[in-house]
C-alpha cells in the first residue's frame, strides 16, 4: 500500500522525535495530505489556540500517491492553524520535498510545542534528530538550504525552510522548499518561526510500495497519456505557464488592479507570459526555460533571468542568475495589484519572496492597499521611512519587498497583512480579503463564481479551493457565463469537493485541466487498499470540506465571515464586460448552504454530519 503507515512526532520543547503508526482508520476516511493532516490537527489542538502559541501544531503531510511515479506525485501540504487568518490553514507545495519525506519513511511529520532555541529537523531514512540551528537563524531560505547541504556534505538533501520573515513573524511568511517552491499561503511560515523551527532537511531512498503494481502502472500510464494529449497540460502550461492568464483575465475585465479599484490593468501585456517569452534589448528573454516538480509530466514551472543592466540587479550579481520565475498569481499581485508594469522589477520581487519566504499574493495585495492608503494620506512618507508608496512605482515595490522579507521598517507593518494594516490606519474597508487572507488574481465582479469561492473558502480568500475560473472563463470542463450567478452554487460545491480529494491524494491540482476524478481514482486504487472509486473520492472531498468548516466554527468563525469586502459588493466594475456589475454573493450563498446540507446560518446539519461520518 502507498501509505508508509508511519508518522513522525517531533516534540520541539522536549527535543524528542518518535515514530508512531498512522491511524489507518482515518487514512481510509481522509485519504492523506490535506484531509488526513486536517483530521490529525482537528483532533489534537484546541481550535481557539493562538496560532503563534506553542499549543498550535504544524503538520507536514504527504498523500498516498506522493513519491510514486504517478504524474505530479511530489506534493505535500502544511496543515496548521493559520497565522494570518486564525482559520484552518493548508498550503500545498510541489518541488521534491514531499517525495523525499515519503521515501524517508513517513506519511506525515507532526511538530508540536516550541523549541527553547532555534533548531532544524534532520531526517535520514527513518533516523530523525533535532539539530542546533543557531548558525542558520537570521539567514535567508537560499542560504539556509545551501548551508544545510554543505554541513551534512550531501547535495541530495531536500530542505524546506523559513527565511527571516518567518522568524520575525511576518504573518504571510511561507515555507519554501527546493529554493523556490512554497507552501505559500495563510502564514504557515510564521507558525514555523514561532516554534523556533528553522528548517526540515530530508534524505530518503526507501521507496514507496503500491497495492497492485500492474493495475497501478496501467492507470498511471493512461493518465500520463491523457496529460500529454490534452492541449492545456501537454502544450499550453509547459510553454507559457500559468502566466498565460494575464492577458486573458485582463481581457475579460477581471484583473483586480490597484487594490481592486479597477478591474483592468493597462500594463497587463508588459507583465504577461508573452512578455516573458519576448526578446529584450539584451537579446535574451526573461523566461530561460520551464521546469517540473517531482514526477511531473506537465512542467509548468518558470525559470527566469533579469536583464543584467536592470536597476534591481546591476550591482548585485547574486540576483543575475536564473531562478524561480513569475507564476500568474505572483505576477498579478506584484504587478497589477500595485500598478507596476516593469517585468524585471516583478521578477526581482519574486526572487526576494522566494529568498526570504513571503507569500507574493498576500504581500503584493497588502502593498496595493498600502499604496491606496498612501494616496489618500492615511499613510505618509514619515511612516514609510521616506519611501513614496506610489501606485505604479517599481522602486516602491522592490524596496518594500526587501523590507518585508526582512521584517524591517515599514515592511514590518506590511507584514501584518492588509486586514490588520488597514485597521491600524482606520480604513478597514480597504483590505481586500476574506477571513483575513488577501484575494488572489480574479475580480469577483467579473467572475461571479469566484465571489462565492472566496467567501466560503475555509482558509480565507483563495482561488485553489474551487477554481471556477476553469469553467467560467477557460471552458474546462464546460463553459459557463462568468457574469451570471445561476448554477454557480453547485459549480463551487463540485469544485470544492473534487479539489479537496485531489489535494488529499499527493498530486497537483493542475492535472485536473485534463483529468477528472475518473482518471485519478484508478491510480489511487492501484496504489491503496480500500476500493477507491470516483464516488468515494467525492465523499472524502466533501468530508474534508465539512471537517475544515467545523474546525473554523470551533475557532469562532460564523456565517458572517463568509463575506466579501464592500468594494466588491457595492462599487461596480468600471470597465470591461462586467462594467456596472458588483458581485452578487447574496444570490448564491443561501443556495450554496442548502446544497451543502447546512442550515441557513451556514452550520452543517446533524444529518449532513452523520452522512459524512463526522
Amino acid at each position, binding site marked *: 500500500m502507498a501509505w508508509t503507515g508511519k508518522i513522525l512526532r517531533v516534540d520541539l520543547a522536549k527535543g524528542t522525535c518518535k515514530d508512531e503508526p498512522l491511524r489507518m482508520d482515518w487514512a481510509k476516511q481522509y485519504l492523506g495530505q490535506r484531509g488526513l493532516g486536517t483530521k490529525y490537527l482537528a483532533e489534537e489542538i484546541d481550535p481557539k489556540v493562538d496560532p503563534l502559541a506553542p499549543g498550535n501544531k504544524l503538520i507536514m503531510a504527504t498523500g498516498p500517491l506522493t513519491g510514486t511515479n504517478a504524474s505530479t506525485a511530489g506534493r505535500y501540504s502544511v496543515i496548521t492553524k493559520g497565522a494570518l487568518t486564525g482559520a484552518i490553514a493548508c498550503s500545498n507545495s510541489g518541488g521534491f520535498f514531499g517525495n523525499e519525506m515519503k521515501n524517508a519513511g513517513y506519511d506525515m511529520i507532526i511538530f508540536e510545542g516550541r523549541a527553547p532555541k532555534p533548531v532544524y529537523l534532520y531526517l535520514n531514512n527513518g533516523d530523525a534528530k533535532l539539530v542546533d540551528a543557531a548558525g542558520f537563524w537570521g539567514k535567508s531560505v537560499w542560504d539556509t538550504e545551501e548551508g544545510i547541504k554543505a554541513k551534512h556534505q550531501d547535495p541530495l538533501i531536500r530542505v524546506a525552510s523559513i527565511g527571516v520573515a518567518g522568524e520575525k513573524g511576518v504573518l504571510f511568511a511561507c515555507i519554501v522548499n527546493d529554493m523556490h517552491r512554497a507552501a505559500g499561503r495563510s502564514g504557515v511560515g510564521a507558525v514555523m518561526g514561532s516554534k523556533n523551527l528553522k528548517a526540515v532537511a530530508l534524505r530518503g531512498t526507501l521507496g514507496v510500495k503500491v497495492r497492485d503494481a500492474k493495475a497501478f502502472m496501467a492507470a498511471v500510464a493512461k493518465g500520463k497519456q491523457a496529460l500529454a494529449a490534452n*492541449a492545456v497540460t501537454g502544450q*499550453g502550461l509547459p*510553454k507559457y505557464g*500559468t502566466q498565460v492568464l494575464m492577458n*486573458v483575465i485582463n481581457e*475579460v475585465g477581471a484583473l483586480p488592479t490597484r487594490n481592486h479599484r479597477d478591474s483592468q490593468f493597462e500594463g497587463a501585456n508588459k507583465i504577461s507570459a508573452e512578455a516573458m517569452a519576448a526578446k529584450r534589448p539584451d537579446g535574451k528573454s526573461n523566461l530561460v526555460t520551464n521546469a517540473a516538480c517531482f514526477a511531473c509530466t506537465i512542467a509548468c514551472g518558470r525559470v527566469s533571468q533579469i536583464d543584467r543592466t536592470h536597476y534591481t540587479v546591476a550591482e548585485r550579481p547574486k540576483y543575475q542568475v536564473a531562478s524561480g520565475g513569475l507564476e500568474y498569481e505572483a505576477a498579478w499581485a506584484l504587478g497589477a495589484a500595485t500598478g507596476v508594469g516593469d517585468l524585471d522589477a516583478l521578477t526581482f520581487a519574486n526572487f526576494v519572496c522566494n529568498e526570504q519566504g513571503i507569500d507574493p499574493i498576500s504581500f503584493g495585495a497588502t502593498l496595493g492597499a498600502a499604496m491606496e492608503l498612501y494616496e489618500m494620506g492615511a499613510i505618509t512618507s514619515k511612516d514609510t521611512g521616506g519611501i513614496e508608496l506610489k501606485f505604479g512605482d517599481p522602486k516602491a515595490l522592490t524596496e518594500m519587498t526587501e523590507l518585508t522579507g526582512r521584517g524591517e521598517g515599514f515592511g514590518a507593518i506590511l507584514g501584518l497583512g492588509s486586514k490588520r494594516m488597514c485597521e491600524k490606519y482606520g480604513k478597514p474597508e480597504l483590505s481586500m480579503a476574506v477571513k483575513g487572507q488577501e484575494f488572489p488574481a480574479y475580480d469577483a465582479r467579473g467572475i461571479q463564481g469566484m465571489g462565492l469561492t472566496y467567501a466560503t473558502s475555509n482558509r480565507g480568500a483563495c*482561488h485553489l479551493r474551487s477554481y471556477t475560473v476553469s469553467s467560467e*472563463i477557460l471552458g*474546462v470542463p464546460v*463553459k459557463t457565463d462568468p457574469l451570471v450567478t445561476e448554477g454557480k452554487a453547485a459549480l463551487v460545491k463540485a469544485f470544492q469537493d473534487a479539489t479537496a480529494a485531489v489535494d488529499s491524494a499527493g498530486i497537483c491540482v493542475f492535472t485536473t485541466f485534463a483529468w477528472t476524478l475518473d482518471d485519478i481514482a484508478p491510480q489511487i486504487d492501484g496504489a491503496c487498499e480500500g476500493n477507491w472509486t470516483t464516488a468515494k473520492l467525492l465523499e472524502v472531498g466533501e468530508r474534508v470540506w465539512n471537517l475544515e468548516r467545523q474546525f473554523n466554527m470551533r475557532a469562532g468563525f460564523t456565517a458572517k465571515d463568509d463575506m466579501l469586502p464592500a468594494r466588491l459588493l457595492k462599487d461596480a466594475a468600471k470597465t470591461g464586460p462586467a462594467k456596472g456589475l458588483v458581485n452578487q454573493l447574496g444570490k448564491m450563498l443561501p443556495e450554496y448552504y442548502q446544497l451543502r446540507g447546512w442550515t441557513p446560518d451556514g452550520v452543517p446539519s446533524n444529518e449532513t454530519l452523520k452522512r459524512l461520518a463526522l
Partner: protein
Amino acid sequence: MKVVVKLYAMLEKYLPPGAADNQAATEIAPGDSVGRVLAGFGLPPEMCHLVLVNGVFVPPSERMTRTLKEGNHLAVWPPVAGG
C-alpha cells in the same frame, strides 16, 4: 471599418509582421463574421479555443454568424489555462 485583432500565446505568429503588443488594427468589410476575420489571419479554427469580442466569449456555434462592429476588440487564445 476597423477592428482590433489580438492573438496570444502560440497564435502570436499569425499576426502580421511588425505587430506589437499582440495586436493589429485590421480593416474588415461591414458584415464580416468573427470566423471570417479569423480565417483571414490564416488561423486554424481548432486553435481558436477562447474567442472574445470586447471580452465576452463567442461560442464556436456562433462564430460564423456573429458580425463585428467598428472598434470591436477580437481576442483569441489556443487552449490555455493556469491558476
